[in-house]
């Protein structure tokens, strides 16, 4: 019979897994922003207007579903907005999604970079203080008797993403060809503001930082461009976070990175959240390399050996949480736990991105149930 008893807190479980150790069972970290809001019956816009609603939704959903983390807003663009406002940068907020760029900033020369605010004060500028308030409240309300019970996971934007958001994705991609020196100068400028934000998030109570890059996959740029231009700034950003805060960093290479996993492994992150990629391939290419001690994800990842270096994950495989039945979620979770925990590695079960708003909540139950059923150490599946 499956034992459902829990010996450790979520905080202990997650932190041990991120150190590459094996806690009582595999933790579940699935970045449930929209789903928590859906459970609490709030739209993202409502929760953006009233951060108390966001905090309450995170806490109540975590208690209900018993996954192992809570998360701040993530990907709201507070630093990009603070950097670009005086140059005309504007975000458009929508009901249930991360904001999108309404007005970007033309970056043609180094002089254009001078229009941006490189000295963002996270405690004063734009929406940054709201994010910090959310982090602080999550931390305070997940403490029991002076001990953290659930880890607070916050987010930081890597320099290539920040630059692409500010000047527009199309223009960013073309800048990499037209004027790579300016692209490098722009990324250099973007390191500082987001670093200060992440340091402030950790000072406010965040226990873990995740950093994503949605603009450097093989869906977007070549391996050569990644290695030469954008990766050095990922490394620099992650190293600075670790140096200034000491908290573990999860890196999310968003999209298809199969042809550059050897490079990603060198980024300095403690864990990788490989999204839709083949978890077994990611494991073989990255586990134990440089600082990588754990993987996060699994449900909605590619079936092993179904993609080549050029290939993308089939939509049918990538949408399990959204379109699948609970037994399919369980089957993929079981497979992921088996792959992710082999040879004693750290593993945190999750999805392949933010789970979409319309994910049936029973599928989140199925994921947590699977971690308890199959993820108890020592693993025997």
């Amino acid at each position, binding site marked *: 019979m499956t034992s459902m008893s829990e010996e450790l807190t979520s905080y202990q479980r997650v932190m041990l897994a991120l150190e590459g150790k094996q806690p009582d069972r595999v933790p579940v970290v699935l970045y449930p922003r929209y789903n928590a809001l859906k459970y609490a019956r709030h739209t993202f816009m409502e929760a953006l207007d009233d951060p108390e609603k966001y905090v309450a939704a995170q806490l109540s959903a975590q208690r209900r579903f018993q996954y192992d983390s809570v998360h701040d807003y993530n990907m709201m663009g507070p630093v990009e907005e603070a950097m670009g406002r005086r140059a005309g940068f504007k975000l458009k907020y*929508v009901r249930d*999604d991360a904001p999108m760029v309404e007005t970007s900033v033309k970056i043609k020369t180094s002089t254009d970079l001078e229009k941006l605010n490189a000295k963002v004060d996270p405690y004063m500028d734009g929406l940054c203080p709201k994010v910090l308030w959310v982090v602080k409240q999550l931390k305070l309300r997940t403490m029991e008797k002076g001990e953290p019970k659930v880890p607070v996971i916050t987010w930081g934007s890597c320099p290539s993403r920040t630059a692409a958001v500010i000047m527009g994705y199309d223009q960013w991609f073309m800048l990499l*060809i037209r004027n790579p020196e300016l692209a490098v100068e722009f990324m250099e400028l973007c390191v500082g503001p987001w670093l200060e934000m992440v340091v402030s998030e950790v000072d406010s109570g965040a226990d873990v930082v995740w950093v994503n890059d949605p603009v450097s996959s093989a*869906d977007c740029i070549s391996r050569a461009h990644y290695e030469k231009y954008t990766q050095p700034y990922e490394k620099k950003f992650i190293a600075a976070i670790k140096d200034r805060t000491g908290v573990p960093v999860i890196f999310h290479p968003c999209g298809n990175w199969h042809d550059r996993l050897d490079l990603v492994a060198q980024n300095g992150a403690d864990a990788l959240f490989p999204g839709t990629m083949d978890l077994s391939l990611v494991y073989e290419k990255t586990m134990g390399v440089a600082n990588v001690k754990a993987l996060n994800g699994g449900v909605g990842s590619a079936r092993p050996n179904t993609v080549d270096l*050029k290939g993308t994950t089939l939509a049918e495989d990538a949408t399990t949480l959204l379109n699948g039945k609970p037994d399919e979620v369980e089957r993929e979770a079981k497979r992921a736990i088996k792959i992710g925990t082999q040879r004693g590695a750290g593993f945190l079960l999750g999805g392949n991105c933010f789970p979409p*708003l319309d994910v049936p909540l029973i599928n989140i139950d199925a994921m947590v149930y699977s971690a308890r059923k199959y993820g108890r150490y020592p693993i025997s599946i």
Partner: protein
Amino acid sequence: MSKEDLLQRVSEQIVAYDADKLVEAVKGALAQNVPSYEIVLAMSRGMQVVGQKFEDKEYFLPDLLMAAEAMKTAMDILGPYVTTARATAAGKVLIGTVEGDIHDIGKNIVVIFLKSAGFEVRDLGTDVPVEKFVEEAKMVNPDILGMSGLMSTSMPVMVEVIEALKREGLRDKIKVLLGGAPVTNEFGKRVGADAATNEALSGIRIMEQWMKEKSQP
């Protein structure tokens, strides 16, 4: 230089995405009285090569965007000639990202390839309401309606558009293609679309096939 060489140079400069040299090549061809529609076709052939290189992971988004921008610059040079570039377009496509969704990178790639393949495209942009799709479909009378969305919340909106087309008696006259990361072919068929895909080039091939079938007696 022969006409073939002039046109070859145009195609090559699209593939090399060198806007200055492309403009030079286009001007050179016009100066030799090469018909503008043949110049446009040469650019389209260049874009086909770009598309193949993109599919083969030899080219990436920056290359694709640069080639599309170079072509746009050249089309500006061709100016009024372009309206007579082809006797008929390869097909007429109405396209947009559905209401509630403002992601458009994928849609824009499809538009680039559609235009370079000779399709006439009416791009409604992002966050397009159901009524707008129907209203434009009545006005434009497209062969194909393409709906795009990145978010799962977009999927029910696509269904609403299809239902609205049925109510207005338009559905049988227009092929419907769904695109976007969460969209599967199974979903497309279930909700009454003609096809669905999450890859730009496969979408183009589907639309070209539809137009081929339509043109057959």
